[in-house]
């Protein structure tokens, strides 16, 4: 996540109507903001009732078999 700084996109007139938290927004390069899922390829799964589906990859290996062993 590429954080570029703390700033706001709102002008003073609008900020006067908002809580102070809106003055200190974290500016993140959109393509690196994980919640936008930029670069992800979605599928769909009727079984999951999902129009945008990602088959999650295991974070840790599930076995100790390594490629060299099965050659």
């Amino acid at each position: 996540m590429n954080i570029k700084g703390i700033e706001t996109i709102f002008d003073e007139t609008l900020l006067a109507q908002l809580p102070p938290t809106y003055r200190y927004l974290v500016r993140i390069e959109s393509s690196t903001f994980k919640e936008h899922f930029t670069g992800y390829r979605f599928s769909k799964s009727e079984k999951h009732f999902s129009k945008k589906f990602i088959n999650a990859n295991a974070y840790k290996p599930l076995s100790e078999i390594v490629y060299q062993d099965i050659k």
Partner: protein
Amino acid sequence: MILVLSHDAYEQGTDPVISWLLHHKANFLKLSIGDLLGAKIPYTVDIDNQDIMVNGVSFKDKISVIWHRRFMGEMSNFLNFESVHAANLRGEVRKEVDVFMEYLSTLLKNKKWLTSFQKIHINKIEALNIAQDCGLIIPKSCIVNNREDALRFWNQHPEGVITKTISGSRGHYLHEDDTYVMLTTDMTKDRMEDLPAYFLPTLFQAKVKADFEIRVFYLDKQFFPTAILTPKSARSVDRKMDNNTASTHFVPYQLPAEIMEKLNVFMEKIGLNTGSIDLMKCQDGSLVFLEVNPVGQYSAESERCNYKIEKSIAEWLIKQDN
């Protein structure tokens, strides 16, 4: 039957549970707000007989357990009106749907719910007081509308002060190539002094001198606690900024029995049977309660600690269905 209320589109906490429901050949159905509002499924809510009829068949009796997760999150898709009266229309249609959903939840109130409809949004400030009543330590907090009182609070807390939203919501705004996100903000003295004389009520909290943060996924008295370890030199005021850095590590953590007991009482008092609880482990060894999110994300902790939380949720739902 298990009824899953969630998104039509990707929802990282729902799909892995459905994979386990499929694996166990469980009897389940996922419904989204789009299914109810998007003219896809013909249904009638029979008010006289207090039943829900789909294709002339009672749906209500088929359901035994409901997993309610981020169901209304896609509601905004149905509020895009191109009209000079758009703001009025949005408000009115939203109210119609809210009251309808409230009635549906009343019809299904005798079912077993994993997060009841009324508890999907809790008052996070009230939650602090409930936690305090249960014997948990909470950060010194206040809601202030003026600079003078905010500065007084700041002066009383030399460890520092943060601010975050009262509701717990986190807005983000796309602007050109960047996204602007509202996270927990460090309120330095300069920032405090720059505050206008009066402002909208704002939550301020004293900083907690913490060694690390603990995220606990809670499922009907089961605890899945994860310590999130980031070196002090690389630590941000909001840990969401550190989650994916190389120096942050997620490790399983054993909560003290006394804290688990207090959290059980807290969850019962607040009316939740699941949620993601944030705690801080302080330098003096105490644990400070920050907040609970009724539908928090859990996949990072589940994967990195090998907790398989998604499997536990699926098995809990199946157990209630049998």
